[in-house]
């Protein structure tokens, strides 16, 4: 009997946590899915009305803007964070004196909440308060940095602040991967006549595919979850030019008494996440039987 328990112990240990995840993640997703098929307004309401909330969702201009923004924001944010993180990692990898110090500078934004990040950049991007005035004061009269105040630029302001916060983390990821690259490969490439630049471009970076994957997964999770940053930096504005789906969902659910539509938008977000994550997880875990 005790032997039986001993043999089942791993399952027993995993069970509470897994049960919690099942309930708090999957249970809630199912709940949300259900609600997204109801006419819930102020409070959840459990009588089904079919896909009407989704129809309404996709007719809303605000939602198209949010989706479009997510696409622009997500792609640019992930690309920029990876490019900058990668660049910094490669540069820091050149036997830099004071590497630890510089690395800390690059990494510290990770520690700061999006609320503070957003607020700080809001101040800096404020045309009359921030950088713009300063630079113009130096004599560069046409300098313009008021991205948050321009409907077309606001989403780039979000990208910039988000990249500011995450690039250091990506840099850390890449740096640690660079450190574990086989030195002989570099020597071999150098003997083969490749310049240092070529060695990075052709050999080292392509061989770090798993790190790129990890970085993309982590960054896309940040992108999809981005909410605080929008609230603090642009407030979704000007107008709703820089809202993201998470903000849309919040606005619908809590401000507009449209819980059904909010739930529908949440389900669309989750489906997006699943579309990225499931293939990734599948390919990651399949080959690791002996893990």
């Amino acid at each position, binding site marked *: 009997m005790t032997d039986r328990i001993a043999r089942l*112990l791993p*399952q027993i*240990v*995993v069970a509470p*946590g*897994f049960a919690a*995840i099942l309930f*708090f*993640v999957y249970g*809630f997703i199912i709940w*949300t899915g259900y609600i997204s098929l109801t006419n819930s307004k102020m409070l959840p309401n459990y009588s089904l009305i079919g896909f009407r909330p989704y129809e309404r969702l996709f007719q809303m201009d605000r939602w198209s803007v949010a989706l479009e923004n997510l696409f622009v924001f997500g792609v640019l944010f992930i690309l920029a964070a990876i490019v*900058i993180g990668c*660049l*910094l990692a490669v*540069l820091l990898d*050149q036997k830099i004196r004071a590497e630890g110090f510089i*690395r*800390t500078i*690059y990494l510290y*934004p*990770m*520690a*700061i*909440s999006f*609320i*503070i*990040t957003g*607020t*700080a950049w809001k*101040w*800096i991007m404020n045309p009359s*308060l*921030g*950088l713009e*005035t300063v630079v113009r004061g130096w004599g560069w009269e046409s300098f313009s940095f008021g991205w948050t105040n321009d409907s077309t630029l606001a989403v780039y302001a979000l990208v910039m602040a988000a990249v*500011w916060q995450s690039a*250091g983390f990506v840099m*850390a*990821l890449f740096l*640690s991967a660079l450190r574990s*690259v086989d030195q002989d490969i*570099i020597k071999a490439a*150098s003997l083969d006549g490749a310049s240092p630049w070529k*060695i990075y471009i052709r050999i080292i970076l392509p061989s770090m595919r798993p790190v790129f994957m990890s970085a993309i*997964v982590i960054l896309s*999770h940040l992108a*999809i*979850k981005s909410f*605080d940053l929008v609230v603090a930096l642009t407030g979704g504005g000007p107008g709703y030019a820089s809202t993201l789906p998470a903000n849309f*969902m*919040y606005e619908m*659910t809590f401000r507009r008494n449209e819980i059904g539509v909010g739930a529908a938008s*949440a389900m669309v*977000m*989750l489906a997006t996440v699943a579309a990225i*994550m499931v293939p990734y*997880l*599948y390919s*990651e875990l399949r080959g690791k039987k002996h*893990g």
Partner: protein
Amino acid sequence: MADSASFTPGNTGSNLALRLALWTVLIVFAIWFLLPAYVVVGTSLKDLEEIRGGSLLALPHEINFSAWRHAWSEACIGVECSGLEPYFWNSVGMAIPSVIISTLLGALTGYALTKWKFKGANLVFAMILFGCFVPFQVVILPMAQTLGKIGITNTVYGLILVHSVYGMAFTTLFFRNYYVTIPDELVRAATIDGAGFFTIFRRIILPLSPPIIVVSVIWQFTQIWNDFLFGASFTTGGAQPIMVAMNNLVNTTTGVKQYNVDMAAALITAAPTLFVYIIAGRYFVRGLTAGSVKG
């Protein structure tokens, strides 16, 4: 180290130019990263007069910590003029148990999933991992209902529960990826030596885990400390964590916006996480190498 300079024993001339370019880029980025910190710190040390008169980027004329004192112990948040101090301790009281619980849960789960592979372990892991990606706005309403049912709404326990559960997705990822690199033979040897599941965990696995514990703790602490949404939704008034109080404080203005107090408040709020990153950042990078990179 992927050092390329040593490949060119000659050519010191172009090397110098390269080095210069390299440092330029590094410094430009350092400035970019430091700019907000500079603005926030600088402003928090100025008095209002100076803020109004000078530019955002100017150095403070004289260091003036009154804004800090004000934000810490005097500023009004709603009708209570207690400063951030009580909320700071709220956050501490919430973050520490949440970090401990989620780290422990993640460690145990990661250990069971890698070293005692049972049927479906990978599926369980994948399902837990997906929890990382659930936008928190989605779970507020069902979570509120649940907390209400359990009867821990508007308490620190509610927040601890929430953070532990959603944190566990991340910590499990970290620990699992780290434990995959620990040879299974260690567990086998210990099994033959007569150690059981928990003994092996406590005596063998846990002592090997500091690098990843550091990563997990830093990550979790940052996430939990910086959380606004859960804190704002599931607590009110005196029970709120500092991030919410800070937000309230920054939005509590009387006539003139006290930028210096706001910035000081932001700094006080960010201080613990900054401290953790600056002190333990090196271990963070090291732990990343050991763990999640391979994910």
